[in-house]
């Protein structure tokens, strides 16, 4: 099990919320590059190298495509490199395209990490606290979807084998799917009566319903959470205050490396790579423990 999986859902959620915010708040190339790299590395740790390669195979071409789009349509910027169909292609526009799409990709990968770590029950646990009824509804709907899917397939096959529709031609296809859906609806309504009975039999509707969860906030969870909040908000404050502001147009603004900027970059880098570092630390620790056994 991954270290991040074992964390209390609130801690993981805080981290992802802050990190995604940081990635989206600034156009600073350094921050974007850091976020992009760290998101990919962490994602690789969560889903494994092979899976990561598969997703990169899709994402890298997309990245290039997105980067190429900007300079074709945007002609701002002062450093003209060449003309394409009488339109100037500028260095600034190219770089803006590259970094903007890197930002999109980093956010994409952070969300990929998020969805790997924050499974539905964790999400329900977090938000069920705020709205207890909602947590049950969410849990029920999540349980309902695979049921519905399986039923749909069953009905579809039953209807197909009945030979009523040929499945050839668009109209026939749509009509047949409509039939399946209509059966599915009746079927689900019927079965939901059972579900309601089962809920009532187990006391749903009594006053003072509580909400059970299997997660426990440990001391180390609390410390880590505090650290995440501290470092994360510090990064956001620094970004909002304009410490690392960067403009692409009309000319690229210089990346200044004053003391404050260095601090900001250091903090953001540390925050972005924190999950990776924690995961690596955990692995190393495990190796040590294992060799002792």
């Amino acid at each position, binding site marked *: 099990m991954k270290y991040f999986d074992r964390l209390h859902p609130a801690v993981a959620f805080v981290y992802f919320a802050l990190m995604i915010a940081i990635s989206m708040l600034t156009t600073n190339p350094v921050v974007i590059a850091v976020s992009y790299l760290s998101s990919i590395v962490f994602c690789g740790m969560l889903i494994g190298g092979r899976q990561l390669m598969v997703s990169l195979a899709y994402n890298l071409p997309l990245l290039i495509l997105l980067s190429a789009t900007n300079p074709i349509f945007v002609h701002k910027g002062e450093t003209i490199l060449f003309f394409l169909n009488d339109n100037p292609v500028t260095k600034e526009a190219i770089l803006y395209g590259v970094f903007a799409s890197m930002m999109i990709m980093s956010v994409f990968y952070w969300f990929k990490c998020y969805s790997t770590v924050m499974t539905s029950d964790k999400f329900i646990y977090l938000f069920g606290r705020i709205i207890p009824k909602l947590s*049950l509804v969410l849990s029920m709907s999540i*349980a309902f979807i*695979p*049921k519905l899917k*399986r039923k749909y397939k069953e009905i579809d*096959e039953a209807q197909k084998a*009945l030979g009523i529709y040929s499945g050839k031609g668009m109209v026939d296809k749509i009509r047949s799917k409509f039939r399946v859906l209509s059966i599915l609806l009746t079927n689900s309504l019927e*079965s939901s009566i059972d579900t309601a009975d089962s809920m009532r*039999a187990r*006391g749903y509707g009594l006053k003072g319903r509580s909400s059970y969860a299997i997660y426990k906030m440990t001391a180390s969870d609390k410390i880590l959470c505090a650290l995440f909040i501290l470092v994360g908000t510090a990064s956001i404050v620094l970004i909002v205050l304009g410490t690392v502001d960067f403009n692409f147009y009309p000319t690229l603004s210089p990346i200044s490396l004053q003391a404050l900027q260095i601090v900001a970059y250091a903090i953001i880098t540390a925050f972005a790579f924190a999950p990776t570092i924690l995961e690596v630390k955990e692995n190393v620790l495990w190796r040590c423990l294992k060799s002792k056994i």
Partner: protein
Amino acid sequence: MALLEIKNLSFTYQGASNKALRDINLEINQGDFVLFCGESGCGKTTLLKLLKKQLRPNGSLQGQITYNGTNIENLDEKQSVCEIGYVMQNPENQTVTDKVWHELAFGLESLGEKTAVIRRKVAEICGFFGIGSWYHKRTCELSGGQKQLLSLASVMVMNPSVLILDEPTAQLDPIAASEFLQSLRKINQELGVTIIIAEHRLEEVFPMASKVVLMDKAQVFLCDTPRNIGQRLANDDMSHKMSLALPTAVRVFYKTQGTGQTPLTVNEGKQYIASNFAGSNTTCSFEKASRQEVALQISEGYFRYERDLPDVLNGVDIEVYKNEFLCILGANGAGKTTLLRVLSGLKRLYKGKYRLWGKKIKDYNGNSLYRGNIACLPQNPQNLFVKSTVYDDLMETAKVVNANVEQCKSMVEEVAQKLDIAHLYQSHPYDLSGGEQQKAALAKILLMKPSIILLDEATKGLDAYSKQTFAQVVDALKKDGKTIVMVTHDVEFAAEHADRCAMFFDGQIVSCDNRVDFFATNRYYTTATARMTRPYFTNAVTVDMAVELCNLNKGAK
């Protein structure tokens, strides 16, 4: 004082003219294991629902039901929820949440228990049922049997003193059903929980019960211990419908006019036969069906769902002859349903040949495969119904084959006559009982005039009487020259009605023979009668065959 007392209970559903229950008087004591049996629609479910305050149906009720001296209606909500547990038939529908742990905690959440308390109780229950390893699983990943066990556990977690179960094993395969019943026995024996259960398959649960209530037409017909029930049925009314459902040993006992203690289990039945009917007649004669032309044939068929998954069909060879009823038996998950999917043309073999009437399956274009050739009755007949009355539903299908409305009408009429469902025309398909639904679905299929009918576990969840009706329907279809293939777990049904049986294992047909030789050769996977009569009889695989031999030997003595 009895734990549950039912006095002069009558009940009529709202808007109904007939009483669903009439003059019921019953006493159920602490620690009893009460088994309710009877044909579907005899009022079992109504009675069970009336025992649980939260599930009481609407209608007018006379008489009263008391729990510990208090009328059920006046019970405290919380008390009723906790102390009277209720488990329903369909495991799929009664699972509410997406995670096993949440499902287990659901009832306790409703009661407003603190997290620490819930954690402890859930842990205990997981230990008791041995389901700790599923704790973090999603409910949709569980098998049917596991889901039903989870439903039981999530009711037991509230520590009920009475547990009511309405046909809890109807949707399970025999192995899962037997495991489930063992858990019930454990609950009854080790915790002293009173169990009230309605069931159709009685072979296993009958000997467990301390009291059996036989219901017929909204009334209690008999109420006694299992041993006495056997005797009283034998004495009272030999042809009573319910006797069909009784365990094999009991049926053999009263059909041979046995005296003394009724045998309930296979073991007891064996002793009964050993001491009374062991003799020189050991083999039944039976008629073997003559072979006709091959209707469908798969040779060396291979199939898998995805490239990286293992083969589900692994060089399967099967031949089905014209006008025969072939049963394919096998364990859960062995791939029987997959075989049926391939036979019905929904899935294609990736290697091997499949010929239908000597013609390659590929050569049946578009719908020609399903018009006049092959039809498949799915496990859940509800999956076929589209319209809101049976008649409209049948007409709709008839219109696909015929252009003319008059023709449609006469066709529907003809099929309905054959299956005896004309009186159900105006009902909603979902309101029919399991057996009736099965027949309505079959009618729909017959409208397509298939020559080969594939049945997927058609006897699942049917009571003994509906099963017999269904067997008659199958016989009638055979007379019309149809070929029928059924995959099933129901060995008793196969032994009584099939022409040939085949055993499916590890992606192949491992044995295939006529029904008698098939079950007589099998040692473990065979009918209760075969197990019970061995070694005294060599090929008595059905109750009737056993009784015939018993009588022959008795006469010889």
